[in-house]
């Protein structure tokens, strides 16, 4: 069975290591913050200028001057730092953020990602996504394996305008965990009760099944 959004987020969070600095995109990536293993601590970076992002505020804590990159009200943890946008992207572009997790429309076997623009639809902009994919040490893409019409989002070559080139290491979808390496997708893990055939059918780019293929447990 395909994973729920929360299960994807859970699997993402299991990638984190103690002491990691992490930037989480909007949507499923943000949910991952709820599933950080209890024996580790990570610090969240929000690209509008906050390192050490905390949970959403209570009514009493709410402050118009305290928002995250999604423009939502937020809090800061003890030990947080707050800085300007140039400094924030110096961190990101300079490779100081350990993990970036973000959504995508398409990823291809070269590690290219398309996530910001669908020609013919109104384009709102890339925000910080291009900087994040160009700068982070490790990037995890979370998305559904196929679109609602069943078309694969894991392609031989992206068809949409790119967000970044040769930058994606790992994709965590509702069906599988896929590594991008040597111009191939490598199926590392598969969701419970999902068949290899289904993953194959929904992966347009070249897919190699790992010898150590694991079934994800929740």
């Amino acid at each position, binding site marked *: 069975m395909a994973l729920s959004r929360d299960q994807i987020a859970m699997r993402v969070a299991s990638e984190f290591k103690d002491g990691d600095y992490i930037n989480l995109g909007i949507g499923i990536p943000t949910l991952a913050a709820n599933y950080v293993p209890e024996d580790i601590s990570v610090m969240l970076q929000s690209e509008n200028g906050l390192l050490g992002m905390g949970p959403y505020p*209570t009514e009493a804590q709410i402050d118009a*001057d305290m*928002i995250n990159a999604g423009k939502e009200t937020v809090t800061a943890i003890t030990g947080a730092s707050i800085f300007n946008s140039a400094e924030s992207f110096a961190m990101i572009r300079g490779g100081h953020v350990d993990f970036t997790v973000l959504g995508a429309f398409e990823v291809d076997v070269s590690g290219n990602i398309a996530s910001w623009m669908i020609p013919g639809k109104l384009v709102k902009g890339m925000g910080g996504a291009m900087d994040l994919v160009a700068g982070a040490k490790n990037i995890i893409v979370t998305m559904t394996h196929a679109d609602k019409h069943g078309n694969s989002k894991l392609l031989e070559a992206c068809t949409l305008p790119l967000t970044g080139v040769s930058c994606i290491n790992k994709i965590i979808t509702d069906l599988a965990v896929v590594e991008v390496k040597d111009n191939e997708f490598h199926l590392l893990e598969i969701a419970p009760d999902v068949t290899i055939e289904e993953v194959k059918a929904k992966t347009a780019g070249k897919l190699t099944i790992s010898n150590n293929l694991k079934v994800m447990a929740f």
Partner: protein
Amino acid sequence: MSGFNKVVTSYEQAMEGLQDGMTVIAGGFGLCGIPEGLIAQIKTMKTKELTVVSNNCGVDGFGLGLLLEDKQIKKMVSSYVGENALFEQQLLNGELEVELTPQGTLAEKMRAGGAGIPGFYTATGYGTPVGEGKEVKEFNGRPYILEESITGDFAIVKAWKADIFGNCVYRHTAQNFNPMAATAGKITVVEVEEIVPPGALEPSQIHTPGIYVNRIIQGDFEKRIERRVLAKEQGEG
């Protein structure tokens, strides 16, 4: 001995000299840390054909969105726009031009503009539409694109506290693009919540040294919240 007292007492004085066709760099991220009164003054002045450099363009009826109502903006240079219906409509009508710029590149372009660096290389946007037509150069085997700096005729900035010399500090994440904007205006105007006496700000803790600032005005801020999200009652992660 008044050469360093940059306080002005009216919004007319604050934005004096702004003319049609000028480039205005604005601090702020969404509706957070925006110079509300200076934007309102530009609306009052009805200045047209403006190029506005700002991460976003406000919302319908607030922030930079106000300047869309009378079609004062010719071009936006932003990383993320279209939170407002008016923006979308003017864009589709061809009344408004948008130059989408990655957020980090935009911040660095402003900083570079203020710092006398006309261009810099970044990997951001290489191989994407952003990189099209831009010079590419390899460093250590990786391709980077050349991005040029941005300066403005005016910079409009929102600070928390400033002294009369123009030394500014920002509050929480209302800092965002404001310090870079402040460096990149030929005329930099700062709207502040509080004007403090000289010496009230610790010299090593000033975000924007006064040298960048030409005019300071005491503002009165609504501080509208764009996305009010609260913690769940219990079990919030």
